[in-house]
Each structure stands twice: as structure tokens, then as C-alpha cells.
């Protein structure tokens, strides 16, 4: 079975630093694929590389069987590969509803002329935006500016905005960061619901509880390399993963302390 999103020996380097090296990932259609790893492992770099926000040094990425090399970020989004950002990056001058609509609408070269005549015309995308809004229980905040919402709500708006585009694959960059346990569980439920709408998900997060409970297949990234992959059960029991991410004994942590400090100093993120 061919994967919806596939990378082959994908490498991203900044100078001498390999943020991602030879990453091979397959995200199947209709599945929830997860990517976990400690801080600075190169998770966000990976999403940036796939969505065209950073240059790939070598290797290739394919979406829907098509090579992504040289495709502009907005073209990738139009092709159905839509992402969220760890730092939200909402359109703060727009209302929640407009944030969703701007994502969903398709424009032609003459759209601005149509706007002059009829700015409030129906665009045929309202249904999808409405669905995304209601799924994440944002209905009551519809006409508020995103600036006026709490951090948790803004997180949900960023997910709803991505969904409004009706993507075939949704890339979520730490959607649970900043959410409390209840909110994060709720998000997990929403994610399973999204899958039913024929939207595949690629989830990056720190929240181990969330990732292990909702994902179908998980990759573990450390120092830019895939160190493990498998079902949640396999990953949970993988000794390599336990050592790198889930927990180490006190003695091992002390030994690793110097290396971790050096990593944070190098500014890898």
C-alpha cells in the first residue's frame, strides 16, 4: 500500500548541523501517524521541510505520489497538505470566522473584481468552515478577534483553521502544548473524529499520553534521526525510546547532562 506522505532519506542541514538526517517516514491514508522526540530532536524542522518552509538538503519527500521538490508552500497547502504552527501564527486582525474562511476559499485572478461588486457573496466553503468551527466547539467565538481568546482557544482556532481547508493530510505541530489534561484529552477525541472525515493526520507532540493513546503508528526522532518506530505498544516498550525520551535512571541522566546542555546551547530547535 502506498503512503499518502512519504519521505526518503530526507536530510536538512544548517551549516554543519544536521537537524534531520536520513529520515524515512510513511504516513498512510486514513491513519493517525505520530512523531515524538525530546526538545531539539528536529520535529518542527521536519514539518517545515515537508511543507516547504525550509530547504531540504538531500533526500526527497512525496505527497500523494508526487515529488514535493520545488513546490511552493502555498501550492502544497492547495494540494491538501496543510499544517498548523507550534507558535499558532493566527491572523490577528481577522475574526475567528474570517481566519477559517481565508483558509478555505479558492481565489481566481478576477476575485478582486467580484469583491468590488459583491463582497459578501456565498463562496460555497461555509459548510466546511462551519463544521470545523463546531467540531472544536468554537461556535460562540465565531465573531471574536483571535487576540481576545485564551491560549487554549487560540490553539483550537489554529486546528480549526487548518481543517477549514478540507486537507487530505493535516500536519499538527504540538497542538496540545499549553493545554491542560482535560483539554488535551478532548483534543484526542476530536482527532479521531477528524479521521472519519477522510482527513489523515500527522501529529507531532510532547504530550506522550495523547500521542500514545490516539496514534495508529508512531515514529521516534532523536538528534534528527529516527531511532524507533511502531505501534504505540511497541514504542512504549522500546528500550531505546525509554532511554532517550520516556525516562532514564538518575545515574544515566547525570552522565547525559553535559550532552543535553551542549545541545541546548547550540540552539537546535
Amino acid at each position, binding site marked *: 500500500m502506498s503512503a499518502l506522505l512519504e519521505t526518503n532519506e530526507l536530510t536538512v542541514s544548517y551549516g554543519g548541523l544536521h537537524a534531520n538526517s536520513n529520515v524515512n517516514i510513511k504516513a498512510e491514508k486514513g491513519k493517525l501517524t505520530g512523531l515524538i522526540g525530546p526538545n531539539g530532536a528536529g520535529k518542527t524542522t521536519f514539518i517545515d521541510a515537508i511543507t516547504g518552509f525550509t530547504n531540504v538538503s538531500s533526500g526527497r519527500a512525496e505527497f500523494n505520489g508526487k515529488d514535493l521538490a520545488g513546490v*511552493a508552500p*502555498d501550492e502544497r497547502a492547495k494540494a491538501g497538505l496543510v499544517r498548523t*504552527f507550534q507558535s499558532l501564527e493566527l491572523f490577528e486582525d481577522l475574526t475567528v470566522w*474570517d481566519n477559517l474562511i*481565508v483558509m478555505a476559499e479558492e*481565489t481566481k485572478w478576477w476575485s478582486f473584481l467580484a469583491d*468590488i461588486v459583491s463582497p459578501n457573496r456565498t463562496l460555497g466553503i461555509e459548510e466546511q468552515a462551519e463544521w470545523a468551527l463546531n467540531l472544536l466547539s468554537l461556535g460562540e467565538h465565531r465573531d471574536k478577534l483571535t487576540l481576545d481568546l485564551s491560549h487554549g482557544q487560540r490553539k483550537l482556532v489554529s486546528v480549526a483553521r487548518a481543517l477549514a481547508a478540507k486537507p487530505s493530510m493535516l500536519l499538527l505541530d504540538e497542538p496540545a502544548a499549553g493545554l491542560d489534561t482535560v483539554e488535551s484529552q478532548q483534543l484526542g477525541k476530536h482527532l479521531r473524529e477528524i479521521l472519519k472525515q477522510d482527513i489523515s493526520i500527522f501529529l507531532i507532540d510532547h504530550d506522550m499520553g495523547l500521542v500514545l493513546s490516539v496514534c495508529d503508528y508512531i515514529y521516534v526522532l532523536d538528534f534528527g534521526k529516527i531511532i524507533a518506530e511502531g505501534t504505540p505498544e511497541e514504542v512504549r516498550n522500546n528500550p531505546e525510546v525509554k532511554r532517550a525520551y520516556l525516562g532514564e535512571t538518575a545515574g544515566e541522566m547525570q552522565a547525559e547532562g553535559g550532552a543535553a546542555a551542549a545541545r541546548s546551547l547550540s540552539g537546535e530547535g
Partner: protein
Amino acid sequence: MARLMSHYGPTESTPFAVGGPHWPWPIAMGAGIIVSVIVGLILAVPALRIRGVQLTVVTIAASISLYSLYFDNPKLTALQGGSAYAIQPPTFFGAKFGVTSSSGLTDNPRFTLFCLLVLAGLCVTLANLRRGSSGRRFLAVRANERAAASAGINVAKTKFLAFGIASAFAGIAGSMMAFQTNQTSAPMWEYGVGLSALAFCYLGGITSINGAVLGGMLAGGGMIATFGSYHSPGIYAYTAILGGLGMILTAVIHPAGQASIFQPLMRHFGSWLLTARGKEWGAVFKRLWPFLLGGGAWGAVGINPWRTDSWNRGWMIVLGILIVLFVRNIVTQVKAAKAAKAVPDTSSLQEVTA
């Protein structure tokens, strides 16, 4: 958008409307707008890479070089040293809409009508663009280019579109300025004029249509300056000084510009106009008649006793009424704001205790 408009406005205009080809005015004006759009699109190229202050500096530099390269270049135009081309005044089916009336003075009321129609058309166009999908995309790109790209918005195309539309507006503004002065010469399009227009736009309020209109009224040659000169001739000399002072005060007290102060008034009045019937009008007249009468009387005798041109006294009565109502509104708003401060709002507290 108002910023771009004011900024490019005076640098490009209707270079073909004059002396040379003797085209009919609509064609000359159209050519002026097209040239303006082309220049605007060329200037949009650096905007793909830079934004904010850097972009402003680049566009100012471009307008300076454009001035030397084209407007003040004797090889291309005959405008050097302030010599002027005459402009063919606009006409509609034989009716003259130029600024000069039959008496030879620049007081043709039809020109005012022409200006008002153009202004209204541009305001509606701009408001619709802002409310429609293009406006959403403009704001998205302004807020966050990365996120806009991830939303499937082509950032470069959106910027080109914004510059193109702004330049078209600037082209129209330039043509109207040429019609207003009946001629065009190089100093009219000097970069300093553009900067002054930009300053007045900032004073009015950047990013709002009201702001652009208010800025236009405040600018030299605008309504407020002209009215000021009725009362105290020679105030023209101080327009720039007062404008500069106003700008400093605006930056300190009201960084969003003056128009935002009048926003509630405009909104209130607009919705009232849409819903008011005979009864409402009657109630308003009952309440306001002393102000209408007083304003009208002041307008008839107070504002313009020494004007010698053909201005109708009737206009002055209307102007007097408008000014009195305007001042009354400001006083009521200030009073209301003071009253709201004096009585602390206890309704929310009561809700909680109930």
C-alpha cells in the same frame, strides 16, 4: 492601503493628459491610471522581500529618482523648472465639470459634485474590497506571511494585487489633483508632496477609509484648510506647521489616528439614517432646532461676509449648521464619557450577588 495611496499618489499621475497628445480627458485619465499601476507594480518587486520601514525607505527613494528621471527631465517632458502643461477640463455630454466656472473663478459647484462622486465610488470600492475575500487575504498576508502561505495564499500575487489597486487609486487621485489645479507641473509630483500627503493620512488614521477621508480634508487645499482661510486669510501658510503639530499630538495621544474618534458617530448616524422615518425625523428636529437655527444664522452672516466670488450664501448656511452640530456632538460625547466615569458600573456586580 491609505498609506500606499497617499504615498504613491503625487508621484505618478497623468503625464499624457496634457500638452502632448491632446487626448480626450477620459482616455488621458485612463492612460494615467494604467501608467500609475505599471509603476506601482514595479515598486512592488522589492515589497516581496522587505516590509515595514525598509519598504517605506525604498519607495521614497524610488519616488525621488522617478522625479529626476521623468518629471524633471527635459529630455522626456517640458515640465522642468516648474513650467506647466494645461489640463483639458472634464465634460460630460457637453456639461462642464472643470474647476473653473463661467465667471472665470475656480468655483464650479459641478466640479465639487464630480469630486464627491469619484470619492464615493472609491470609498465603496475600497470598503467592498476590504470586506470581501481580497481584503481577508490582504490582512492575512499583513499579519503573518508564513501562515498566509500555509493557508494556500500566494503571498507574492497578493502583494502585487495590493500595490496594483493602491496605484490605481493613486492614479485617480493624481488625475483629480490635475483637474483641481487645471494644470500639471513637475513640483506638483515632488516626493515632498507625497510625504506631506502621507503625514496627513497618518493624522487622519492609517488603514481606515474614514482616516483617508479625514486626512484629505485636513491636508493643504482640503476642506478644513480652505474653511480656515475663509475666517483668517493667510492660514494656508500655517497648514504644514499645524499639520506637523497635529501629527506629533496624534502620535502621542491617539496613535490610531483621529478618524477612530469619529467612528462611533459615523456608525450611529449611518444606522439611524437607514431606519429613521417621519416620526424620528420630527423628534430630532424638535430637539435640535435651536442648533439648526443658530448654526444657519451664523453661517449666513458669520462665516463668509467678505467673500467676493460667486459662492452661494445658502452653502454657508449649510456649513454653519454642520459645524454647530459637529461641535454639539463632541460636547455630548465628552459629557457622556465623564458621566460614565463618575457613576461606576454596578450592573455586573448586582448580577453576581443576585
